[in-house]
């Protein structure tokens, strides 16, 4: 994959290995390469423990890579130590919406303070006539996410789940980022408000021209919001392709199991092949064995002597399986 000036983000062979004692290494993220184009929304899916969150923390530069490059608009930001990253010009450009707004908002900060905090810390975004006053920046962000201005003096416990989700989004978009990383933004919401928040995210992307990296394990939500989807399994990308194709014609057996596991109204659980067993250990994995070996319904002998590499299956679709 070539790092291009046009992409908002390029990850090139990104690795993160955590030492877990006695020289053993936990391979949380292994050789992950992908790109996010301008205005594109990319979904990142996979089971808990597959390295999604580590990858997100690497991209948002809250964690340092073991090796590999993270390139933001053609400039390598992977080598900037995470502790120093907040002081750089790039911090406002890569922002994050955290999972549960009830947990991620400070209970002693009003909605106004929550949205104002990044502006106070990182400096106001440049408006047409120079820096905007703080109150104006906050009011604009609140307006963008559809949060009524009279709710700004309220504390999180005085807001509903949907309103808290809006505050969480507002404090990320107030910096006018290029890349917004969303970590399960609707997981804590009731279905009754899920649709409004999803539509808000789709509208914001169109209006502000941001790119999204959308982490979720709700595949139906990913399908609705994302152009392209990356599937991770045990630290590696196992499949990558356009969202629609991935759901209609999954190439990797893991993706297939993932898609089939989505419950649907009127569906029958009996028609579902349930993945048995537990994932392999991510600690010092055998480089010759496919990471999915042991749970894969299609595994053969070759899978434990030669780990499959990502290869193009069809135009735009790559998968790491010998038998796709």
């Amino acid at each position: 994959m070539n790092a291009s000036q046009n992409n908002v983000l390029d990850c090139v062979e990104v690795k993160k290995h955590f030492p877990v004692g006695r020289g053993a290494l936990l391979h949380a993220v292994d050789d992950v390469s992908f790109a996010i184009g301008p205005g594109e929304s990319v979904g990142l899916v996979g089971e808990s423990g597959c390295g999604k969150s580590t990858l997100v923390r690497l991209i948002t530069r809250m964690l340092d890579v073991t090796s590999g490059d993270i390139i933001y608009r053609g400039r390598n930001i992977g080598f900037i130590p995470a502790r120093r990253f907040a002081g750089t010009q790039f911090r406002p450009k890569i922002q994050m919406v955290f999972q549960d707004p009830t947990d991620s908002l400070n209970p002693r900060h009003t909605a106004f303070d929550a949205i104002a905090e990044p502006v106070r810390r990182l400096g106001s975004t440049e408006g047409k006539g120079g820096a905007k006053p703080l109150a104006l920046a906050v009011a604009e962000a609140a307006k963008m996410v559809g949060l009524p201005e009279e709710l700004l003096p309220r504390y999180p416990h005085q807001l509903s789940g949907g309103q808290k989700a809006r505050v969480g989004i507002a404090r990320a978009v107030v910096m006018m980022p290029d890349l917004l990383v969303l970590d399960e933004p609707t997981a804590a919401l009731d279905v009754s408000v899920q649709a409004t928040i999803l539509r808000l995210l789709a509208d914001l992307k169109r209006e502000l021209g941001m790119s999204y990296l959308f982490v979720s394990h709700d595949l139906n939500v990913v399908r609705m919001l994302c152009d392209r989807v990356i599937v991770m399994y045990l630290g590696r990308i196992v499949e990558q392709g356009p969202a629609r194709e991935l759901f209609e014609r999954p190439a990797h057996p893991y993706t297939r199991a993932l898609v089939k596991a989505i419950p649907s109204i009127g569906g029958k659980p009996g028609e579902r092949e349930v993945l048995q067993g537990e994932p392999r250990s991510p600690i010092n994995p055998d480089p010759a064995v496919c990471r999915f070996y042991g749970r894969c319904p299609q595994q053969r002998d070759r899978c434990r002597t030669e780990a499959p590499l990502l290869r193009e299956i069809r135009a735009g679709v790559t998968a790491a399986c010998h038998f796709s």
Partner: protein
Amino acid sequence: MSSEAAGPSPLLEVMDLSLEFRTRSGTVHALQGVNLAVQKGETVGIVGESGSGKSVLSFAILRILDAAARVTSGAIEFAGMDMLAASERSLEEVRGREISMIFQNPRTALNPIRRIGRQIEDVLSMHSSTLRADMKAKAIEALARVRIPDPERRYAAYPFELSGGQCQRVMIALALACNPQLLIADEPTTGLDVTTQAAILSLISELAAERKMATILITHDLALASEYCDRIVVMHAGHVVELAPTSQLFSRPRHPYTARLIASTPGPAQGIATLASIPGNLPDLRRADLPNCRFHARCERAQDACTALALPNIPVDAQSGVRCVNPL
């Protein structure tokens, strides 16, 4: 609702249950006039938004409510026993042995500093007449039944050494150790991966079928309820608003809230533009002047009669009913 017509003497029957919590900031009217019947061996789903009273209802069935809770009317009968009048002693006989419960977050429900094998033995020694010498074998057998790989070794594991899915399997092993007649599963797969969710729910439904055990599945995921339940009860703000066999509920919802919930559940072919939302929020259940229909402020079919008339109990047929003045 028309629970009397559902068959001869159900295993569990909740009749006209009303319940409130007295708090410093007012009385919360958490449940009002709730009816529910569960037959032997069937799986009943309870669905609704958070705050609709699903968990409170299940806590009331087991009588593990907070001290601030007061049952103001109604009755709960389990296998002929009056659960609300029963002594704490006889309740202990029922809990864990006849009715058991799986909680939402297995990691917080398990004791973090006790080996999982021991935790199963605790249940056995409390609720069964297993001899001390047989305990370990029984505990390992219970782990094997929920398909935990290598149960002899896992017997000595602590919860932090297991994955979330395996912890939930241990919870199921604990809940089923004494062959209960009724299992209450409160959001058993929330927070688990979809692949794990499928494995856990298939396990529960297989084990339930094997033992002819009745199951109450509490979930906010309608798609999940549609796949695993025989009948579904829809709750909103402390009311049961609709009750119907699963296929009927989805093919012909009668309550506007049910219809909205279905439309807001993402399906495989759904686009973001057609996904529905439900306007407004649950009413503040502390209000003294709660309207007769607690959904009317969010309902597009609301009429004057919705607040003027008492909430009707309209039987649709022997198996189903709806509580709405102006049903679909």
